[in-house]
């Protein structure tokens, strides 16, 4: 009998659960999965009292189901042969839809057409306005700075503080020049 959880190892522990409605659920699990699901440490697992231990009852069935969904991923991913796949991590589009998770950073590029409308729906727009990594390239930093300044410029125009706005505009043009210049240098 194969373990219900990992679907790999031989099941050696068999649990029968009665819930309040009188429904019976059977689980066949291997030792490794019991350890995972019941949060047992190595010594608790190897200890002699394991057989009579109540700690095995600590298996959280919600947790079990979650783990099931994790292994569901493998079956999901291999199920739909037609669906498009990410070239890098091989996750299929239908698996992403069902899991609500993407597989790797490149998925966001691979499935741009499908994901961007969804992202727009749950977030405000698809433009990052927050901080950027310290070690990203200089160009990105300047571009980000320009974005921030343009945002500030709009704010100043709204409150009709044109003096400040003019200063910001000059800063933006000088940064844009810098960007243009560094772009040329890169091409050479």
């Amino acid at each position: 009998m194969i373990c219900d959880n990992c679907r790999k190892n031989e099941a050696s522990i068999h649990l029968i659960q009665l819930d309040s409605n009188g429904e019976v659920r059977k689980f066949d699990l291997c030792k490794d999965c019991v350890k995972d699901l019941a949060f047992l440490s190595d010594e608790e697992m190897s200890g002699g009292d394991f057989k009579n231990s109540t700690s095995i009852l600590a298996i959280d069935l919600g947790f079990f189901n979650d783990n099931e969904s994790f292994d569901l991923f493998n079956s999901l991913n291999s199920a739909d042969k037609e669906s498009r796949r990410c070239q890098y991590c091989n996750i299929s589009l239908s698996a992403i839809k069902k899991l609500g998770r993407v597989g790797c950073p490149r998925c966001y590029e691979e499935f741009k057409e499908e994901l961007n409308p969804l992202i727009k729906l749950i977030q405000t727009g698809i433009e990052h306005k927050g901080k950027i990594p310290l070690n990203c390239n200089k160009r990105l930093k300047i571009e980000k700075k320009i974005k921030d300044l343009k945002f500030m410029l709009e704010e100043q125009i709204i409150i009709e503080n044109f003096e400040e706005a003019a200063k910001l505009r000059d800063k933006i043009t000088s940064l844009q020049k810098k960007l243009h210049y560094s772009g040329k240098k890169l091409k050479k």
Partner: protein
Amino acid sequence: MEENISTSQNIKKLKFKYNAEKQQVILNSSINLFRNISGYKFNAVADKTDKEGILNLVLDVKSQISLLDNFNFHYLRDIPRLQRQLLIDQKIILSSTTQKIGSKAVILNSKFVDKNKLTAIIVNEDEHIKIECQMPGNNILNCYKEVLKFEKKLEKKLSFSFNQNLGYLTSNPSLIGTGLKASVVAHMPSMVISTKIVDFIKNLNQVGYGVSSFLGEGNEIIGNLFQISNLITLGKNEESIIEELIAISKNLIEEEERAKEELKTSLSLSIEDSVYRSYGMVKYAKILSFEESLELLSILRFGLDLGIIDEIVKFDFYELINIISDSSIELNYIKNKKASLDEIDFIRACIIREKIFKEYN
């Protein structure tokens, strides 16, 4: 092996210093920052070798960061069951996650120099890295500063997945952009009794903030405790998310105070009754479940603030919540013995009496 011993001792000490006199609307603030390391698949797809690679990478980086000198690296699989449950109850790690514990790790401060904050770095949960900070009370800005300090150090050594348009990338599309989840736990009995809370939650949802149970999403609201956190992470910068949550917290406190004042002027017999009923329950109950305790303590705290009752000490609600969780009782009051649920409930009732009745203090 030594690491193991320090693990269990270390995690036992997860306690905050509290201030019972201060306002008791915002009980707790927390910040979670999610990051993924570039060059690796996300954890939903990653196999064992990928995850081991991430663990080793983080372990290596940890040793290079002096800020993390006082922090210990624990594999989750080495942490005993009870301590692990305590970490779950303290909302440091998730109980249900799609990842197996085999490859998960948590980096915790070993000394707890500062009892007013709890910082942890969790590796290989749903995302590669989660930097977390919790502080009691209304402290969201300080939490963010703390998290940022650690993120900066990590960012110098690690390269995080980043996209110019989408910001920091996460496997869960609802976290991309800033990867920042800020939340506060609010205790709002007056708003619930006056049913104003319904409109308040609706308004919060409209501005992109979600309200869930203190026990985590999908659970029932108990003890008039609400967890409020941002739903939107992309298209706003970090500062505005924090500022908005601070404004919301301020608004929450004001609204709760206003509702309280209104109730004070038109005190009904049924409110007084429920306060004294809870008093009687706490005083004479032999066993109290965690959920029931939260409900009773919430009403007692409300009675104290309203001046209905003065037979009890001005207790700190959040401190008590942390003391009376199952795992905390098992760890601190029942040593190395397997306790039945009734025993735990009995001890819980005793602890509560000890903490709130004047004759014990």
